[in-house]
């Protein structure tokens, strides 16, 4: 008797839940989107979500910032393992390979085809799509916030040494730094060697000067890649130069531990040149000292090296497995919305990120976006990303397992060189050797999984 009562009560409850569930579905399909940006950028992403939600009545995307790329990835993985994953997740460049090998996603190209959208994938800038595409050129995720490194220089300071343009090569830059030092500037070049900030000096340097970081096209062609950056003459020579500038006081380490980051130091007029992401362009524009004249340029090349495309940084959006068709429809509609040129304009205006598609870029140009003062110069990021053309044979990015750990090994080597005066070649060799152990470990973990 008792059991019967209990059963019928449970049945009623179940029916009620189902009924309310289907009632909600009839109204709107809700999907979750988790991302890692924080602060101002997080607000901008939220605004973008709100615009999508207001633009139509069928779907609602709930956007939640997880605080940082790392935290977002960890939370997404934990949620996925518990079967509670969001429909859309942002994964940064460093986490791309792991998710690509996981099989935990619904490929972007497949999703859009299944949902009846015709996406022109070649509309993406080659430098951007190349970074996230498989070895066969298929797009498994949507490039979202994209950036690359630029050379920021203080025009007022350079005018004092009779220069009206940024250095095109590092040799020219060395002369400029020396002259700035002689002219009484305490920090001609501000830089940092903590693991989050060495990508400009190693990864982007190698990209721009056309040197490989690892074999197998920086890992794009297989998990059996080996690091070779330590054997590249230009990089080794450049690190030696950087150290000599540092010893001469022409380059100064600025980071949170010293009390001022190099970006803050540049904005305050304390450092006269830095390398940082185009994503900082808006921020520096807002925080720069009153009346300071500054500009951006593409990264200098080294010696006689021909200029190659720089690598794209940022993150892309992945659709995760395990959701219903209705939810995937909502996701596809959201991506379709993001692809609109008007969205690209708003996005690039409120953040420093660049448009990811040719159509978006053309729209920005037609609106005169790059002529206006606060935004002028950002077009150089696109130029820097596309300088090699679409079908160049050099690697279009870095696809290495444990990339954050490898960066840490390189950062430790640089810290040994700069703080402890260790030998440049020996330190870089050590970092490459330890990095290769990490790669071997990664390949072992994914033994039997083919790199798409």
């Amino acid at each position, binding site marked *: 008797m008792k059991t019967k009562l209990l059963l019928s009560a449970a049945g009623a409850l179940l029916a009620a839940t189902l009924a309310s569930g289907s009632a909600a579905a009839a109204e709107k399909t809700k999907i979750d989107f988790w991302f890692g940006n924080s602060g101002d950028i997080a607000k901008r992403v939220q605004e973008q979500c709100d615009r999508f939600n207001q633009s139509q009545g069928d779907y609602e995307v709930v956007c939640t910032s997880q605080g940082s790329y790392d935290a977002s990835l960890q939370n997404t993985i934990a949620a996925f393992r518990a079967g509670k994953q969001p429909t859309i997740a942002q994964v940064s460049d460093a986490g791309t390979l792991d998710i690509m090998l*996981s099989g935990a996603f619904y490929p972007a190209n497949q999703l859009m085809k299944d949902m009846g959208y015709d996406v022109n994938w070649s509309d993406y800038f080659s430098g951007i799509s190349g970074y996230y595409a498989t070895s066969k050129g298929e797009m498994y995720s949507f490039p979202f916030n994209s950036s690359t490194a630029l050379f920021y220089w203080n025009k007022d300071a350079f005018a004092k040494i009779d220069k009206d343009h940024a250095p095109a090569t590092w040799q020219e830059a060395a002369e400029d730094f020396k002259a700035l030092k002689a002219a009484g500037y305490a920090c001609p070049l501000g830089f940092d060697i903590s693991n989050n900030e060495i990508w400009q000096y190693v990864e982007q340097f190698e990209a721009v000067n056309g040197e490989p970081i690892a074999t197998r096209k920086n890992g794009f062609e297989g998990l059996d890649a080996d690091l070779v950056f330590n054997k590249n003459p230009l990089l080794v020579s450049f690190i030696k130069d950087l150290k000599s500038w540092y010893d001469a006081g022409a380059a100064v380490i600025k980071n949170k531990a010293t009390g001022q980051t190099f970006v803050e130091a540049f904005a305050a007029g304390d450092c006269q040149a830095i390398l940082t992401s185009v994503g900082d362009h808006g921020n520096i524009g807002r925080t720069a000292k009153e009346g300071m004249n500054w500009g951006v340029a593409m990264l200098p090349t080294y010696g006689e090296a021909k200029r190659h495309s720089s690598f794209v940084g940022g993150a892309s959006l992945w659709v995760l497995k395990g959701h219903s068709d209705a939810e995937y429809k909502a996701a596809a509609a959201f991506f379709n919305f993001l692809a609109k040129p008007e969205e690209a304009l708003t996005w690039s205006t409120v953040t420093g990120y660049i448009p990811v598609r040719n159509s978006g870029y053309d729209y920005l140009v037609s609106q005169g976006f790059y002529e206006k003062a606060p935004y002028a110069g950002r077009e150089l990021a696109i130029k820097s990303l596309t300088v090699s053309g679409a079908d160049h044979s050099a690697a279009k990015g870095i696809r290495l397992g444990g990339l954050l750990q490898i960066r840490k090994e390189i950062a430790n080597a640089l810290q040994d060189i700069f703080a402890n005066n260790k030998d440049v070649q020996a330190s870089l060799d050590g970092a490459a050797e330890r990095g290769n152990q990490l790669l071997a470990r990664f390949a072992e973990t994914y033994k039997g999984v083919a790199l798409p």
Partner: protein
Amino acid sequence: MEKRVTFSTTAIGLLFAAPMLLLIFVFFYWPSAQALYWAFTLEQPWGGGNRWVGFSNFRQLLEDPIYWQSVTRSFVFGISSTAISMGMALILALLTDRELAGHRLYRSVFIWPYAIAAPALGLAFRFILAPEAGLLSVINRVWPDLWNPALDGKDAMIAVIIAFSWKYIGYNFIFFLSALQGIPRALIEAAAIDGAGPMRRIRDIQLPLLTPTLFFLLIINITESFQDSFGIVDVMTQGGPARATELMVYKIYFDGFKGLDYSGAAAQSILLMLLVILLTIFQFRFIERRVHYK
């Protein structure tokens, strides 16, 4: 006859204990078992599969000289921060116990640092200890380049030790003070009447009676310094410069959460757990002999 209230059957007793046992199982044994399992496999972070590799994760770690350096560093950190935080706390507690002016205020204020989350604490100390812009930058104005945790490994280690000790001084203080107040006043007064000065009374009466508390805090401090330091390290130095502050627990955090090397991090956790267990056994075996419980 004495009346006792007992449960009539074991089952009822277990039933009362069940919620607690369940909590311990879910939050302690289950994750530990998972870590133990991962330590013997190579686990794909997204859960795509894992392979049994036996002791290979452990072998890789133990053959790595840099891993051993992080073990040594953890000992340096643990012993120095325990010495500083217990020493300072003991001095503060002895002074407060003497009922100097304001002791009522100190009694409640000194525990506060323990309530501050490690990252917030690290942030505060990063500002205080920054060589160019922090409060300590005055030192560099007088003696240029004397203090630079951003570039000097020793300075960086000192900085994280200070930050960590500061947090635990408050915790230790509370225990010391309550133990001191548990010492019968009559003993101290008798000693004073016999002509013993404050230092003599500390040495011959208070410290010997404090040994159970000293021993308890020693175990807690050593254990915590091996486990609770990653938040401070992450915010202040990220293990740098050039690995100078890469403690065992920070390496676990970085490899596991940033590098997504779950198995490597699990193996390191197991090694850390074994180390802490060994240390505790050692302390019970050799130091506890000198402790006088009543």
